[in-house]
C-alpha cells in the first residue's frame, strides 16, 4: 500500500499520519505538497489534521481550492480511497467530496479522548473493524459540529453513510457523549460511493500505548486490508 499524505500550509498532523503508515503498518507513505499536481501513484490519500491556510474564512474553505485538490477529486471520482481526518474532514466537506458541513462546536474548542462506535464495516476505513465496535481516541478541534439538513441526515442514515458516532462508555449515543453538538452524534461519514471517509477524531494519535490508546490501529489496518483485497 502506498499512502499519499497532503501537506497544506498549516497542516500539523501529517507527520503523525506518516508515522502511522510507515512505523506502525510498515507500508509506504509519501508527502504531497498542496501545490503539486501528482499523487505519485498513491492508493490512499490522507487529508491530515491541522489548520490548512489558517482556517481562514471557514475551516477547509481555502484548502479546497489548493492545486492538488483537483487530482484528489479525480482520484475520488475514480473510486480511489480518500480519508479526511479532522481538518481533512472539514476540507473534504468543503470540497463536496463528503456531505454536510462542520460548524463551530456548541461548547468551544475541545481537546479530550472520546469514544466512537463503528456503524458500518463496509468502508475502506472500517473493513477490519466490526459493527458496534467502540474505539477510544482523541479529538482536538473547535469546528467539528457535523451539520446537514434533517432530510439529508435521514438520507445519510438510510444509505448507511454515518460511519462513526460519539458514544458513552456503554456504547450508547447520548447527548453527554457528544463533544461538539454534532447532529445525531455523528463523528464520521462516507460518500455515496463509500470510498471517501471523514472523521473528526484522530486515529493516528491512538496507535501507541504510551499515548493512552491503540484503538486507531484497526482503522489503518482497514485501509491496508482494503487495498490488498
Amino acid at each position, binding site marked *: 500500500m502506498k499512502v499519499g499524505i497532503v501537506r497544506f500550509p498549516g497542516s500539523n498532523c501529517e507527520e503523525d499520519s506518516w508515522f502511522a503508515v510507515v512505523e506502525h503498518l510498515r507500508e509506504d507513505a509519501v508527502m504531497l505538497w498542496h501545490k503539486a499536481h501528482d499523487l505519485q501513484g498513491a492508493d490512499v490519500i490522507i487529508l491530515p489534521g491541522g489548520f490548512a491556510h489558517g482556517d481562514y*474564512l471557514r475551516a477547509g*474553505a481555502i484548502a479546497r481550492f489548493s492545486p492538488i485538490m483537483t487530482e484528489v477529486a479525480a482520484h475520488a471520482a475514480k473510486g480511489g480511497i480518500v480519508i479526511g481526518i479532522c481538518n481533512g474532514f472539514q476540507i473534504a466537506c468543503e470540497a463536496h467530496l463528503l456531505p454536510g*458541513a462542520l*460548524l*463551530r462546536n456548541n*461548547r468551544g474548542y475541545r481537546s479530550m479522548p472520546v469514544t466512537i462506535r463503528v456503524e458500518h464495516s463496509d468502508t475502506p476505513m472500517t473493513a477490519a473493524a466490526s459493527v458496534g465496535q467502540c474505539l477510544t481516541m482523541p479529538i482536538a478541534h473547535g469546528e467539528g*459540529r457535523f*451539520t446537514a439538513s434533517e432530510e439529508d441526515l435521514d438520507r445519510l442514515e438510510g444509505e448507511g453513510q454515518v460511519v462513526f458516532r460519539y458514544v458513552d462508555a456503554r456504547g450508547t449515543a447520548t447527548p453527554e457523549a457528544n463533544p461538539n*453538538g454534532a447532529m445525531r452524534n455523528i463523528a464520521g461519514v462516507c460518500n455515496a460511493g463509500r470510498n471517501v471517509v471523514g472523521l473528526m477524531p484522530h486515529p493516528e494519535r491512538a496507535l501507541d500505548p504510551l499515548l493512552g490508546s491503540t484503538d486507531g490501529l484497526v482503522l489503518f489496518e482497514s485501509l491496508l486490508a482494503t487495498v490488498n483485497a
Partner: protein
Amino acid sequence: MNFRVSVHVVPRRGILDPQGKAVGDALRTLGFARVAEVHVGRHVVIELAAESADAARRDATAMCERLLANPVTEDFAIAAVEAA
C-alpha cells in the same frame, strides 16, 4: 469602473449559532435585557472592476456561491454596491 461591494454572510436560520448565543448572553449580562437573539456572521468588502453595478453584483454573487458562503449552512446577501 471600480466598485466596492459589501457582502453579509450569516448562519442560516434554525442552525445553532453558538457564537451568536454567547454574544447574546453577554449583552443581556451587560443589562441589554431586550436583546432577543444575536447572529454573528461575516462582513466581506470586495473592491473590483466591473462594467456596471449590476455586473459587480453578479460577480460578487458568484464569489459567494463558490467561496464566501457555505451553501450547506450559510446565507448571504449583497448589502451594498457602491462606485469606488
